[in-house]
């Protein structure tokens, strides 16, 4: 067994995951607080107003990281789905289903903040632009995954069925990312992740990156909390859980 597989199996063991995530959570929470406070203060107060959009551009500090997270979490789920289907790792299943509601919330936040931004900037709350439509589809796919998982009674097949559905839904991810390139509609092009460097002033970029890290940490924290609950619920009968709660 090579070291990668060893690593996967180590993380895949529920007691190990429970213990390590418990140790990591306080650190992650601290980092999250720091990046969030810096990101919000620097973004909402320190950063200068935009030359075109004035102060309303500041919504990017919520909108953009939320939209990134909507896709990022889906990719994490897809990877977890592959790991779960190929190596039958229990934790991957837990990660997948714990992530889905968080991803759905981020996609929803991205849509709502985008809509609030669209009204003053584009002159409309909603337009059937390619980016907006595909983001809406992403939200629907998240909801479908959650619905399927709760509909299948048998835990094990619920996890595997959700994994298959997650992989099928992956086709939407490149569509969202390239929608602004392929269809020249209203939503502006890529600002930060482009080959010729970000098209945003540095004093505006740093708070944005800080917010992006804060959102990622928030996701990891909430996912771990949810996963820990899920693991305890699934392993109620095992010895380590009994020892943990100190009863017979």
């Amino acid at each position, binding site marked *: 067994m090579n070291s990668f597989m060893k690593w996967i199996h180590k993380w895949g063991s529920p007691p190990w995951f429970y213990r390590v995530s418990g140790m990591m959570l306080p650190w992650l929470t601290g980092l999250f607080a720091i990046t969030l406070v810096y990101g919000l203060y620097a973004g909402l107060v320190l950063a200068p107003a935009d030359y075109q959009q004035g102060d309303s551009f500041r919504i990017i500090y919520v909108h953009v990281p939320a939209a990134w997270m909507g896709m990022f979490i889906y990719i994490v789920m897809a990877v977890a789905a592959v790991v779960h289907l190929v190596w039958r790792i229990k934790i991957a299943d837990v990660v997948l289903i714990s992530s889905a509601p968080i991803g759905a919330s981020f996609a929803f936040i991205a849509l709502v903040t985008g809509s609030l931004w669209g009204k003053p900037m584009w002159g409309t709350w909603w337009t059937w632009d390619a980016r907006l439509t595909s983001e809406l*589809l992403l939200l629907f796919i998240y*909801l479908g995954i959650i*619905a399927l998982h709760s509909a299948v009674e048998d835990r094990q097949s619920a996890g595997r069925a959700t994994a*298959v559905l997650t992989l099928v839904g992956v086709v939407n991810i490149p*569509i969202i990312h390239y929608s602004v390139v392929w269809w020249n509609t209203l939503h502006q092009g890529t600002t930060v992740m482009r080959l010729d460097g970000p098209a945003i002033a540095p004093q505006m970029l740093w708070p944005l990156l800080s917010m992006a890290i804060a959102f990622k940490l928030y996701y990891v924290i909430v996912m771990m909390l949810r996963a820990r609950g899920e693991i305890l619920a699934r392993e109620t009968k095992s010895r380590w859980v009994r020892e943990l709660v100190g009863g017979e």
Partner: protein
Amino acid sequence: MSVWQAFIELLRRDLRLAMRRRAEVANPLLFFVMVIVLFPLGVGAEPNLLERMSAGVVWVAALLAALLTLDSIFRSDFEDGTLEQLLLSAQPLSVMVLAKVVAHWLVTGLPLLLVAPLLAMLLGMKSEAMGTLMLSLLLGTPVLSLIGAIGVALTVGLRRAGVILSLLVLPLYVPVLIFGAAAVDAAASGLPVAGQLYILAAFLAMALSLAPVAAASALRISLS
């Protein structure tokens, strides 16, 4: 038995079964016709409005009719145990799934395709757009059946599968709907339609090669 023979055998069996239950074959068609008839009654019979909506209406109705019939791909075979036999057979399951989907499309998709121009005429669609309508449905409806097969395979063991199935499948249907309707719209406006048709064909190629595998693994999970 070679894979190809098994494919043909299964296809013939499914078609024969369908021919014995003609009412079930006719029902989705009737549904398709009635949904389209509802639109002029609901939004008013103004010819310009209907003509502009015709592409979208025909496509949405076809999509709903396809959704309605999906359950029949695996449901009855699941109930009488045929599906388990199929899982146990030596033939690759994805090919068997493909045979069932092809049979399903021949029984439900093809009739829709043949009635569609008639209904489009009722809505006042321009005759220039008819060819594109047929072509877009020809490329698009098999994709609906293929994607639907994954959804049915995932939900076949569930008691109340209907609503969940539409929740899973409809978001995946949207791209097909968008490009199908856009192709017909473009044709009605006298614009080139090649782009949309290429994309529909790409969806078909993608779905043909990947959906049977996904549906096969979903079936294995549902029946395990």
